[in-house]
């Protein structure tokens, strides 16, 4: 992939990626920083991308990795007095935003990609590097937990 192609792809995708990071990290500034980091790392390794047609899901996967790093860093630095007292309740009693935020990470990424970022099942599977069947199962489980019927 050429540099021109890379930056053209970033330009096309950056708003979508920023919104995805914003949804996961719940912070404008962190989403911007993480997008910077993901685009930087993508640029460093875009020569290794063997299938340019998968650019979107490839860069999404880098962004997801960067979000995970940020969340681990936050977990490490979170002071004791700011830790939540409880974090998992019956999600159908919660407002949807809060219920999504309390989904286990594996399920949450599927929901964010599928229903808030308009990735197809195939694209979600590629971005998460999972079999389609696994994504489908997680999607079903997450929607059940959220009591959300989108069929």
């Amino acid at each position, binding site marked *: 992939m050429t540099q021109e192609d890379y930056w053209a792809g970033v330009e096309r995708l950056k708003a979508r990626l920023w919104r995805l990071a914003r949804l996961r990290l719940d912070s404008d500034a962190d989403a911007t920083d993480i997008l*910077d980091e993901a685009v930087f790392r993508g640029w460093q390794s875009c020569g290794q991308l063997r299938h340019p047609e998968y650019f979107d899901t490839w860069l999404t996967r880098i962004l997801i990795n960067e979000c995970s790093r940020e969340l681990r860093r936050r977990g490490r630095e*979170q002071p004791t007095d700011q830790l939540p007292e409880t974090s998992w309740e019956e999600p159908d009693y919660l407002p949807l935003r809060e219920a*999504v935020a309390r989904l286990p990470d594996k399920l949450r*990424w599927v929901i964010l990609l599928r229903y808030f970022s308009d990735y197809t099942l195939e694209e979600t599977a590629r971005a998460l590097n999972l*079999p389609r069947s*696994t994504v489908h199962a997680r999607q079903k489980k997450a929607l059940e937990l*959220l009591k959300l019927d989108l069929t």
Partner: protein
Amino acid sequence: MERKEEYLHMRQEEADRPLPPELNHLEARVRARARQPVRRRPARKLAFTVALCAILVLGTAMTWGLGGFGQLIRLMGQDAEQLSPYYQTIGQSVDCGEYQVTVDGIAFTTRSYTVLYHVTATDGEWDETQAWAHLGFSHIILGPSGSPQTPFESFIAPQSLEENGQNGWGEWLYGEDPGSAYYLLTMSTTRPLEAGSGQTLQLYFNRAVDGVSATDVTPGGTLLSFPVEHVLQEVTIPLNNDGPCQRLSISPVSIVLDTSLNVEEWSEVALEFRPELTLLYSDGTEWVLDDEKQFGADRMSMARDVGDDGLISPKWHLRQAPPDLSGLTAVRLDGVTYQVPPQT
């Protein structure tokens, strides 16, 4: 509001969220960063230089006066963050694309295992956040596995560690060395470990796809297998008191304090325990768990990803093993003495 309406409303809210103006300059910012030299830590370089000079000066002095470098190494070993020598040396590496993971050592005790490994950036570049990406690389299973191509049925099972009779957490150990970060991955096992029982510890490392590591378990990675061949002696002492501390387990590599402190599933907790612990031996000698004998003495003990039972068990990794545990008769924990019962 109906759930579906709520979803559509939230979706619209997100779609309407204004983009930050910084996004307009994303390319320029990233290109500028790429022109900067790789981040290094001058303070560490300075510390390394000072340490090297000190070694040369001290070493020369000791060669003359105290019997050479052997003593120097022993002296440095007291202060260096070295593990208890009871770890089995492994030294196996796995190429994970951007990074190389090397398993340095493993220690099995009756109720737990601990893996020391370090992660090195293959391109030599390093920053503070990189290391945290790798805890997700390893997936662990005790017991028989499938073929190397599909070691885990459906590639979901290893995520449910409790199904494999274990739970635990990874821990950042040293912080960074130049180019590497060291970790301890420690797991408690509900099924006792027994040498020669056929139990095997399997570490699975995801493959990198297009140079990017996976965030989840994927086929085609690398599986390392370590048979449980040597299990270290572990003494368990029930603490019959009204407090949260319920049981103490002592081995040559770690001390674990099981508590009755319960937490909600999926929640994160941080606890600070700084117990005063002394081991009392039949010959009258005592061994005190002081800061020099444990890792991370200057930081908070943190228990995260609490196990299926919801209980927290802080663990101290030892830099110096206590004397032979067969002579241990009692422990003194925060001023209270507990006798060691016969071990089964």
